[in-house]
């Protein structure tokens, strides 16, 4: 399977940590899932390891959410395919901090 270019939007704290501005364009091999996108993101930006997913069990951190195509995908299985529009790069995969703390 050929590589796809996935657009990823990060919250401000993680953009600062990864030292990027704006969206990240990520080449992802194989099926486009939460896991493959986040694996690719962490491989390119090692400083993000542990900030989105737990280092030990790779589970999403409790106050992190995943949105795409106006859907909340946070509770979807990490190996399920992401929407086709994300895989084609038409819509971004959005990582954000949950609304918390007022």
């Amino acid at each position: 399977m050929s590589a796809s270019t996935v657009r990823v939007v990060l919250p401000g704290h993680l953009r600062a940590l990864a030292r990027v501005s704006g969206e990240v364009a990520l080449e992802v091999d194989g099926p486009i899932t939460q896991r493959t996108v986040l694996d690719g993101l962490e491989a390119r930006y090692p400083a993000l390891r542990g900030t989105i997913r737990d280092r030990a069990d790779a589970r999403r951190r409790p106050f992190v959410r995943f949105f795409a195509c106006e859907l909340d995908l946070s509770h979807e299985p990490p190996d399920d395919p992401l929407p086709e529009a994300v895989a084609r790069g038409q819509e971004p995969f959005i990582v954000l901090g949950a609304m918390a703390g007022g």
Partner: protein
Amino acid sequence: MAATRVLVGTRKGAFILASDERRRDWSVTGPLFAGWEIYHVKGSPLDPERIYASQSGGWFGQVIQRSDDGGLTWQAVDNDFRYDGVAGEHQWYDGSMRPWSFTRVWHLEPSLHDRDTVYAGVEDAALFKSTDAGASWSELSGLRQHDTGPQWQPGAGGLCLHTVLEHPSDPARLYVAISAAGVFRTSDGGLTWQPINKGLRSGELPDADREVGHCVHRIDLHPAAPDVLYMQKHWDVMRSDDAGDSWHEVSGNLPSDFGFPIAVHAHEPRTVYVVPIRSDETHYPPEGRLRVYRSRSGGDAWEALTEGLPQEHCYVNVLRDAMAVDHHESCGIYVGTTGGQVYCSPDSGDSWTAIVRDLPAVLSVEVQTLP
């Protein structure tokens, strides 16, 4: 002329305050890591250009930053604080059992003995060590796996390992302090640990003399007298003259013996500083007057230091890692408050001025004395 660099961790970022040996005029850099909780920032005693920062937050967890150029640039290093083996359980506040779970790094202690070694004290309480300047961490799990581990219970701030002290000449000897478990000592580099809490009495425990369960807030020592340990406990200021084998109270004439930090003068091993706080219910100074107390006799007899500190309407706290001393010829004392002030006394506590007044709540203060 020598220089002074104060490293400040706050609820919303880190700041670096710089001056010369006179410590009158200061530059302020920051916030670094803006918006993150910076529990601790500390430089290596062997290489002052190497500084570590513990950066954490509820959303995105724990990051460790390292600078090799005195804080000008930083890189994120390893943040994998995975407990060794089966994590097990400890007591929760209500006495029920709860699995050990990593929350954050409270304290980073760069080694006195090796440039690339640094220790991390974490919540839930455990001690991690890196021998490659933070590129990887491994737990010294003999501590957490001590027989008393299941009895450890969190203090109000969590079950945190907040103090790491190295013996100045014996790299195998370490002391750590945990709220609310107590003080532990190793003489074999961290393989095995011994609770050293004899003489502590804590009214919060059904058995006030229990081996563990004491809410030790901070300990300190002077390298010229490394068997003398000073402690600010939840209540009580304590001293040990036998490397922690036994403790006795030296609260003396303090207006309150509750408090968080304790620090020893850089050049006088019997001169000690504390910041009395009215009580664990209020967490502010007695009578709304911020006073640092100094003892020149290893405790018992204390004098209030007030010149330049607010003496009315002051209701801030000084947290356990928020007092430090420099090593200039005229020893400087530094105190950071939850109100965002960092006070400096360049004359061993006789007089104080605020370096900054409006930072976010200060979590930690460390100081480097630079050639």
